[in-house]
C-alpha cells in the first residue's frame, strides 16, 4: 500500500477506499429512485445526483491509485453533467 499511514496499520488509502465504497452504495440507492421513481423529473434528478457522486468517486480513485489523469476526467464529467441536465430540462 502506498500513501501515508493514519495510525497503526490503517493507511489513508484504506480510508479513501472506504469512502469510495460508501459513495458507490449511495449511488446504487439513488439508482433505485431513478428506476422506480414516478415521473420523468425524478429520473432526471437521479441522473444528476449519480453524476455528482461520480465526480467525487473519480477524484478518490485518482488519489487511491495516485494517477493525476483522473482529475481531468472528473472536470470533464462535471461539465458534461451540467450541460446534460440543462439540455434535459430545456427540451
Amino acid at each position, binding site marked *: 500500500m502506498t500513501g*501515508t499511514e493514519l495510525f497503526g496499520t490503517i493507511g489513508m488509502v484504506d480510508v479513501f477506499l472506504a469512502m469510495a465504497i460508501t459513495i458507490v452504495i449511495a449511488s446504487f440507492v439513488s439508482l433505485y429512485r431513478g428506476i422506480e421513481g414516478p415521473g420523468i423529473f425524478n429520473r432526471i434528478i437521479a441522473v444528476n*445526483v449519480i453524476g455528482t457522486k461520480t465526480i467525487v468517486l473519480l477524484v478518490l480513485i485518482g*488519489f487511491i491509485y495516485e494517477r493525476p489523469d483522473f*482529475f481531468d476526467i472528473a472536470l470533464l464529467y462535471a461539465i458534461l453533467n451540467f450541460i446534460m441536465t440543462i439540455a434535459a430540462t430545456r427540451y
Partner: protein
Amino acid sequence: MSDTIINLTNVITVLLLLVGAFFMLAGTIGFLRFPDFYSRMHATGKCDTLGEGLMLVALIVYGGATFVSVKILFLILFILLANPTSTHAIAKAAYDVGLEPWRKLDEEVAWLNTGDTGNSDESRAGEDGGEVR
C-alpha cells in the same frame, strides 16, 4: 515534529471526509424517503453540494499545495456554480410543466377516496403535461 504535523493533516482529512460522507448519505436517504419531487430536490440539491465540497476540501488538505489541488479547487468552484443552477433549472421546468407541490391534506383525501397515494396522481398529471408541451 514532522510526524505530528502529518498526523494532524491526516486527522483533519479524515474528519472532513466523514462529515462529507454523512451529508451525502443524508441527502441520499432524503432522496429515497421524501414524498414529493420538490422535497426530494430540496434534500439532494443542498446535501450533495455540501458533502461533495467537504470531501473535495478534505482531498485538497491531504494533497497539499500542488498543481492537483488547484485542479480540485477549480472543480469545487465549478460544482458550487453548476449544481444550484441545474437544481433551479429542474425545479423551474417541473413548475412550468405543471407538477403540483405535495400537500398532506391532498394526499390524505386522495388516499381515502381512491386507495392510492396522491403522489402517483401528481406524477401522472406531470407526465400528461409533459406530453402536451
